[in-house]
């Protein structure tokens, strides 16, 4: 099995889809010659040309909106929004248009559009270049939401997103781009709506997304030293959500921690907690703990930024709290 970085895995999925299908094309800011601000699309211009690897003006509304129009004509556009903070500039098209055309038309139209974006703290960009806004989109019927945490997952999930007939908001985490991992020789599509159990355990389930999957795996190892057996589950797709796998895990362990980098309040952990308490109420031995960022715009100074967003020790603390309830 070859080893790819998370960045290369995204690129590999894009290149394979572009090779396989004339209807696939990519557009976004700085994605052509520069290869994207994160270097994800490097080399694609050379292989596929400027007609299919299209630099755009700084016009997030028009980028997403023209993707919608092309998708409704049967193309499978992949648009890149450079930072998820800038998704805010395209919200009208995403929320009012992409998500709703199918229903508003009574099923006449579909919008097979993939919106790739990235974010995440840990490099001190300040408040407008590192937010984690995935929960906003989970609240919109008609969208699908994916957040992949490993090279294998990001490749297989991106492929499935491109070939899904619905608009998919596809989140990548900036600090994961250099992460290496083995991927299968042949790209295996990973179905949307299937969680992945990264580590099996008996005492506590940690349901984590994005960077926090890796922080949770570190916390799980530390907990093991203390005699606590931790299961780590990554939903991978936030919408639709694999409730079955998550509830089964918590019924087994009877305790649960949710973990993401986004602010805790109103975050995806709140939705997870609601789903879990309803599906595993009689099994729970402790309140569900939520780990997330403190309720503040991301500050610039590295020490403050580090304090605002969660890390492995925050997950470990939450694990200990659930166990301490007996």
């Amino acid at each position, binding site marked *: 099995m070859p080893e790819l970085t998370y960045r290369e895995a995204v690129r590999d999925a894009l290149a394979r889809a572009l090779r396989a299908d004339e209807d696939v*094309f990519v557009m976004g800011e700085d994605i052509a010659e520069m290869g994207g601000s994160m270097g994800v699309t490097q080399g694609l211009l050379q292989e596929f040309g400027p007609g299919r690897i299209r630099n755009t003006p700084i016009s997030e*509304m*028009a980028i997403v909106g*023209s993707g919608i129009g092309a998708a409704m004509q049967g193309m499978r556009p992949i648009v890149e929004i450079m930072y998820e903070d800038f998704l805010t500039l395209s919200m009208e098209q995403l929320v009012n248009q992409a998500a709703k055309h199918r*229903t508003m*038309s009574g099923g006449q139209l579909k919008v097979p559009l993939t919106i790739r974006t990235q974010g995440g703290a840990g490099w001190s960009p300040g408040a407008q270049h590192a937010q984690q806004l995935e929960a906003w989109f989970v609240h919109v019927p008609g969208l699908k939401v994916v957040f992949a945490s490993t090279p294998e997952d990001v490749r297989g999930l991106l492929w499935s997103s491109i070939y899904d007939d619905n608009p998919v908001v596809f989140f990548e985490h900036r600090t994961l781009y250099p992460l290496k991992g083995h991927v299968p020789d042949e790209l295996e599509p990973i179905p949307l709506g299937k969680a992945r159990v990264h580590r099996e355990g008996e005492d506590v389930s940690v349901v984590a997304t994005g960077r926090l999957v890796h922080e949770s795996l570190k916390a799980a190892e530390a907990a093991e030293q203390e005699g606590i057996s931790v299961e780590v589950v990554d939903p991978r797709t936030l919408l639709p959500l694999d409730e079955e796998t998550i509830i089964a895990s918590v019924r087994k362990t009877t305790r649960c921690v949710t973990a993401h980098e986004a602010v805790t309040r109103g975050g995806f952990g709140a939705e997870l907690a609601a789903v879990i308490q309803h599906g595993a109420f009689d099994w729970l031995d402790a309140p569900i703990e939520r780990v997330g960022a403190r309720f503040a715009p991301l500050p610039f100074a590295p020490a403050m930024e580090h304090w605002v967003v969660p890390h492995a020790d925050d997950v470990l603390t939450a694990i200990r709290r659930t166990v301490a309830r007996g």
Partner: protein
Amino acid sequence: MTTVEEKAEPGRKRVSEEVLRGFFRQMLLIRRFEEKVEERFRAGELPGFLHVAIGQEAAAVGVCSALAREDVIASTHRAHGHAIAKGTPIERIMAELYGKLEGCSHGYGGSMHLYDVEVGNLGANAVVAGGLPAVVGAALTFQMRGEQRVAVAFFGDGATNTGTFHESLNLAQLWKVPAIFALENNGWAESTPASQQLPLPVDKLGKRASAFGMKLIEADGQDVEAVYLAALAAREHALAGKGPVLLHLRTNRLTGHYIGDPQIYRDRDELKRERESKDPITLLAARLELSDEELAALDAEITAAVEASVEFAKAGTDPRPEDAVKFVYA
């Protein structure tokens, strides 16, 4: 599409009387449809929020008559005229307004979301300028696939103040996609007059095209022949690979913004003058010199068709409540 003839005046294209009569019939159909919608809404039969296009019939008919069936449009909240002109039968539109499965959006859309993909109506949009970027994307697809088709966005003067408008025209011109931006300039953004929302004279709004280096074609939006010829020229320009066109049509909204709008913001005398001098149907009837008998016969026929659309709609099928979630995902 219909053919254009060179008539007596050298250099000036004219449309045959037969074609104009066809336009007249369509415009009158829209007018009577809209009047019926107003009546049925006031009678309490129609749910929702309705905007009629009384006064703007020539723009809808002139533009859509210049299009091929495979060309696509995106419409606005004031959508009924566009939908009729693009070829959706009125009974399917009326059924939509009654929320029936037989409606053109099967009861999921309503007045502000009329769709009919088969005839190239990609949907009416309740967000001002909301449909413009998708038209750019549709036109981009036609360009990428080498298809001889254009995509048309209808919008009003109010929409030209949105960021979406500027982003869309900028991108369309940059990529020279075959799009037509049909600006129905009625001088009102809901209740706000041009003087309070446009920093340039209302009649000069087409100048915004120059900011993008875009081709501008202008026509009197109350003269269906002028609109039609302008739209034909716009389509020809776009299909020749010369890029998109801003098609500026100065028109008049001869009613309120929505049905029931008391129009407390509008000068009564001016509205009366507009109704007397700017009604595109009256203007065309005079031009065609239709006799009273001809007009009465045509009107009776159209009125009966509109009445039949109401009967069709009322006899339609109510959707099952639980089917509300049927099309959330493909």
